[in-house]
């Protein structure tokens, strides 16, 4: 039923499907788009094999609404797209946020704006992942750097979305989606899979948006279990009642859906440090760019420069403390990104002036050459 434990050669787009299935994903709705098409393709073959449902939708607006519906029917649900489709999903994304619906969205980034560079990589959607839908909310976005990460983070994404009842976005890119490389599947019993908490009170005592004491989110029933929940896009109070003008209840709802993510940043954040123990220059990178950065850091070390790498796996919520601590240790922070310089603004803000922060932008649909990052490292220590 699942891919067997052991090492398999897989494309990133294939690995993310296998990870999602092991995480319990049983509904996928999507519309094919390069470079995410292989995800839908494999899902269409694999879903029936695990007793799940695959639906090809008419567009991305329908795709995201379908997975929201499926999640309320009690199924872990996912869609996958690229920039143009992700733009179309912003309305549905907001709907999932206000209704606190756990879903996983994969955005395999390609070059934009608009239809853009359909087959080439980009990291241009990193801010859209945080701010793309209107209104105030917080979100979780993870950036895989390898086919292995696609497998691992698919599982993490479902676990986080079930825990926090929030959409989780996997921000891949064309290189990681298409790279074919070995993926290690651990024994199933070593894989942690989180299920959403279900109500343990009778339907008449259930308050749909009131978390239990000490919790950030309420237990979530499925449609048809007898619990009455108004799943609606208008602002609601704890009872799920529509509130058009009750600013006090609205403030409570907005702050809770914001803080359930932001106050748990320590738990949600994943990162990797390489060669940082004695580093004087740090490269902060994510996604496929982190691999180029690692190459550049190793090259710098070969040349006697004390460089290190912080690979951010969780991009949102942004882990200010990690950057603040890094900035207090190093003289300079280099931020290479396959965009005109986006996360660098967050890094600059979080470093609080303790280190010089340098952007190394790259656009046009190609990874940085390691030498471009190395040159920035060298100029920082000069």
């Amino acid at each position, binding site marked *: 039923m699942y891919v067997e434990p052991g090492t398999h*050669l897989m494309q990133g787009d294939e690995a993310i499907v296998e990870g999602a299935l092991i995480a319990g994903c049983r509904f996928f709705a999507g519309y094919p788009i390069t470079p995410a098409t292989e995800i839908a393709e494999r899902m269409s073959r694999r879903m029936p094999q695990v007793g799940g449902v695959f639906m090809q939708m008419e567009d991305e607006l329908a795709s995201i609404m379908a997975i929201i519906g499926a999640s309320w029917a009690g199924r872990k649900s996912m869609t996958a797209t690229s920039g143009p489709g992700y733009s179309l999903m912003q309305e549905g994304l907001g709907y999932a946020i206000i209704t606190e619906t756990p879903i996983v969205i994969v955005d395999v980034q390609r070059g934009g704006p608009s239809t853009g560079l359909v087959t080439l990589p980009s990291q241009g959607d990193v801010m859209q992942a945080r701010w793309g839908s209107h209104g105030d909310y917080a979100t979780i976005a993870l950036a895989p750097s390898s086919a292995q990460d696609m497998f691992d983070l698919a599982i993490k994404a479902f676990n986080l979305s079930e825990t926090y009842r929030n959409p989780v976005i996997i921000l891949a890119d064309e290189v990681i989606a298409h790279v*074919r490389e070995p993926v290690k599947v651990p024994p199933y019993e070593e894989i942690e899979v989180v299920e959403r908490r279900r109500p343990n009170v009778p339907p008449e005592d259930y308050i749909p948006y009131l978390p239990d004491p000490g919790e950030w989110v309420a237990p979530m029933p499925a449609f048809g279990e007898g619990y009455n929940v108004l799943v609606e896009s208008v602002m609601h109070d704890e009872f799920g009642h529509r509130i058009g003008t009750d600013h006090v209840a609205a403030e409570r709802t907005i702050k809770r859906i914001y803080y359930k993510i932001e106050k748990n940043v320590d738990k949600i954040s994943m990162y990797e440090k390489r060669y940082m123990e004695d580093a004087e220059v740090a490269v902060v990178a994510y996604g496929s760019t982190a691999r180029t950065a690692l190459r550049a850091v*190793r090259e710098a070390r070969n040349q006697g420069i004390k460089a290190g790498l912080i690979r951010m796996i969780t991009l949102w919520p942004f882990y200010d403390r990690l950057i603040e601590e890094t900035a207090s240790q190093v003289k300079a922070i280099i931020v290479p990104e396959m965009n005109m310089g986006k996360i660098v603004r967050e890094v600059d803000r979080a470093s609080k002036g303790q280190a010089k922060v340098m952007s190394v932008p790259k656009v046009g649909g190609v990874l940085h050459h390691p030498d471009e990052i190395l040159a920035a490292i060298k100029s920082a220590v000069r």
Partner: protein
Amino acid sequence: MRIEVMISGFGGQGVVLSGAVLSQASVLSNYYAAATYTYGPEARLGSTRSEVVISDEEIDYPKIISPDYWVAMNQMSLNTFSKRYPLDKTIILADSSMIKYFDPVEGKVRVIYKIPATDEAERLGNRLVANMLMLGVFVTVSGIIPLENLKEAIRRMVKPQFIDLNLKAVDRGKEIGESLLKGVKV
């Protein structure tokens, strides 16, 4: 050890498949491998490229810095990429059925092996197996991957009805590779 292999051609020549098969053969030979692809939106005839990095340790940068081997399957890609990479250590395996002008790389690279791969594949029954014939040449000339692992990769990744023909192409590639190593012109 880090060996970078570039395969370039146009859409329809099986450039992506040969990159995939080579990465599988490498993993079967207990190496790390990362295969990435670059192609345009066209279904056929657009510029297409596989970049395969083979290493005995985990691979950081998955793209090519300077190719150790370059399987060039058409003239356009030879012209384009001769300008994009340092080539002084590069061994070129060129499909001389498709490439007639070698000026862009002549004198710039370590060796150019000229192999009439498409004509040879046609003689085997289908020009589309030129890609696997070239992989047969590659494993023979490079010596880094046992031929049997290449064949096993083909059995795993190629559509069942085409496996035999592809294996035949690999065998022919091996013969050609052995001749090239002996200095015999093919």
